[in-house]
């Protein structure tokens, strides 16, 4: 279980995150929604120790993150929003590095690694450097790396971006199966359908503030079963009647 309490993050004067309080239970898939710049990545990066929050606390299974970083990191695997890391390494070397990071023994990891490579169809690219990969291939390499350790908490920042339909489908199945084992999956997305399909629970952020937290079903029940898109736009979106688009693309003789 992950508890976030009064989490704030400022960049200079800019408040990227304001008093976020959330509980994420084990065994569930938790989704973050919100416009660009709403604070999704900031939240996820705070969870994986990339960002030092300005104030607030995070506890994982009752342990305070600040005081137990090493121990907590060992339980978490993270898939960043841009997969452009360790480009100097080959995919295989990257996986070796991750296996060592999580102190997995060669025997433990060999079968899992093999299966993952096969699932994501990366067998032909093990010995190529990540610099030479397409966006989707880098994304797949990082997904494989993240799953090597069978993490208790799996955190993904817009993971479906750039994946082919097959890989996207497989990833969604993996996320479901991972949660079904009792582990926690946390991700952010802009695709509302994905959120609806996957999430047990949902948080919607707007300009650094939490504006909804609960299940998709509850959310829709509160809004007379409108589509998630309509509800989301109603809550997080801009209040206009479409005239901005008309200004740009509309008929010039208007």
């Amino acid at each position, binding site marked *: 279980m992950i508890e976030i309490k009064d989490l704030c993050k400022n*960049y*200079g004067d800019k408040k990227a995150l304001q008093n976020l309080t959330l509980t994420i239970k084990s065994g569930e898939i938790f989704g973050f929604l919100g416009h660009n710049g709403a604070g999704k990545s900031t939240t996820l990066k705070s969870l*994986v*120790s*990339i960002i030092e929050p300005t104030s607030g606390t995070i506890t994982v299974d009752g342990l305070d993150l600040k005081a137990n970083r*090493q121990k907590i*990191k*060992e339980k*978490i695997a*993270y898939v*960043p929003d841009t997969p452009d*890391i*360790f*480009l*100097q*390494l*080959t995919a*295989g*070397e990257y996986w*070796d*590095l*991750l*296996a*060592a*990071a*999580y*102190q997995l023994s060669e025997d433990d990891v060999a079968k899992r690694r093999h299966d993952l490579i096969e699932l994501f169809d990366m067998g032909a690219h093990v*010995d190529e*450097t990540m*610099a*030479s990969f397409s966006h989707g291939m880098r994304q797949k390499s990082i997904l494989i790396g993240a799953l090597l350790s069978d993490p208790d908490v799996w955190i993904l920042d817009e993971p479906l971006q750039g994946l082919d339909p097959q890989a996207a489908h497989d990833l969604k199945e993996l996320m479901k199966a991972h949660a079904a084992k009792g582990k926690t999956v946390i991700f952010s997305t802009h695709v509302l359908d994905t959120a609806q399909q996957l999430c047990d629970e949902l948080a919607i952020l707007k300009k650094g503030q939490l504006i909804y937290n609960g299940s998709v079903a509850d959310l829709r029940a509160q809004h007379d079963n409108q589509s998630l898109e309509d509800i989301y736009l109603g809550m997080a979106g801009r209040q206009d009647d479409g005239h901005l688009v008309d200004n740009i693309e509309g008929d010039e003789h208007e």
Partner: protein
Amino acid sequence: MNKQQLRALMSVDLRLANPQVTDRYRKKGKTGAALTKKLTNQFVYNTIIFILIYGFTMFMLDFSKMPGMFTFYVGLFVLLGISQSISSIYNVFFAGKDLASYLPLPFREKEIFFSKTLIVFLNVVPFTLPLLLLFFYTGWRFGIFIPLAIILAIVVFLLIMALVFLICALIVFGLTKTKLFQHHKNAVMSGLMAITMIIAVAGILLMNGSNNYAGAGASFDRAPITLLLPIYQIFKAPISLASGEGWLGLIALLSLFAALLKYQVLPNLSEQLTQVNTTEVNNANPHKKARRRQTKLVPILDAYNRQLLKEPNLLLQVLSSSIMMPLIFILTFAMNGSAFNFGQLPVKWFGVFFVGGLVFAAMTVNQTALIANLISLDRENFEFVRSLPISMKQYLHRKFQLGFFFQVMINILMLLIAAITFKMPLVLLASLIVGVIWGTYLMCLHYFRRDYRLRITNWTNITQLFNRGGGNLALVATMFGSIIIGGVIVAAYAVVVGTTKLALLANVIALSVVLIVSIWFWLRSQKKFWRLFD
């Protein structure tokens, strides 16, 4: 610290520390553990070669009678060590940009920094290990009991290595604390690497130059470097009042630097390095006046292209092949006493100087020059620009002009230095400069096109670009080829002009040949390159 984690981190750092070698082995299909082994072996080879070369030369010398020679070698290896450490620190800590990527992983900060430091150390040791031999020889020649001499040598060697390391760590990591560095990371790093290299080369040249042999004793010795003499005393009489200065000096400096490092630099260092590794956090500077919006393309392109030049490893390369190499040539000639004096040469020599300028251009413009990498420096931006409605010809042309201007200015500057050193008459100098301008222009055309043809836009370390085409071997071959062939041509031409009555004929023939070849070359590059973008 966990062994498995350390080993994994070190194999990453090994790759970062030696991008060029890594790239070479990758091309041969080496990856993973096999590559790590190859890279480790590289250290062993370097060490053996260095030890063999210097071990043998130094064995021949009796340092107990040559304090000058002793201090010369100490100075040489210390300078080598410093310049090697600074560039290794840059490659391992900065160029790899990996520090931020470790944050979410369960590595301990200690392990990350320890592995990086260790690899930097490994990268430097091969170049300084001859010091250990030097110390041992000296102690032994002074008649110290051999096991004691060995221990003494090891102790002093370690002290000096620690000193070299502390100095470099203080300089580099101290710099990262400054505002200047945080805002202009690449520029500062380039400057630092350039300065270190100049100091190293200049220092070695100076030491070489001070060849006024001291004393009329039986053995030829050079004038000692006073600053380093206390170290010599240590071996002369390890436990004595005379060697006290050496011991005390070393230990005092060490403790001073260590204290500085501990209290001034180390606090918050890891956070700062990680910050430097990630993209700037507060890019917007609210106090800066908003720039007027530019809609003219050329100034924007120029500003952009100038940004590209701030790549530290590239500048280092430019510095070494376009500036240091010619300077070393000029200085060695000048210092050897037999310096040429061109003051009396008549005008008929203008053709020789013109061709000399061409040859000089051929020597200095090669695949590591700026112009030969300017397109690849764009990285993915280049492909993106192709999608924009900008004339590709204009875009490339502007790039070319910038690269050519840069190169030709450096070359002219070098020749002006040579002209002053060798007292060239004005007419011949003018001819030389016309030659170098024309030669640089042609070479730039060639290498610019080559860069386009072999462009890599997803490189991770700039040295990958230098290795394109034939790689290092081809680079060395073309460099020496142009020096030798160019030298032969100029020499032959000079002999004809200087010793026969055929000067006029020779000039006419030479200039016609140059003219015809250059026109052909120019037309070809227009047809094969520039026309493609019409």
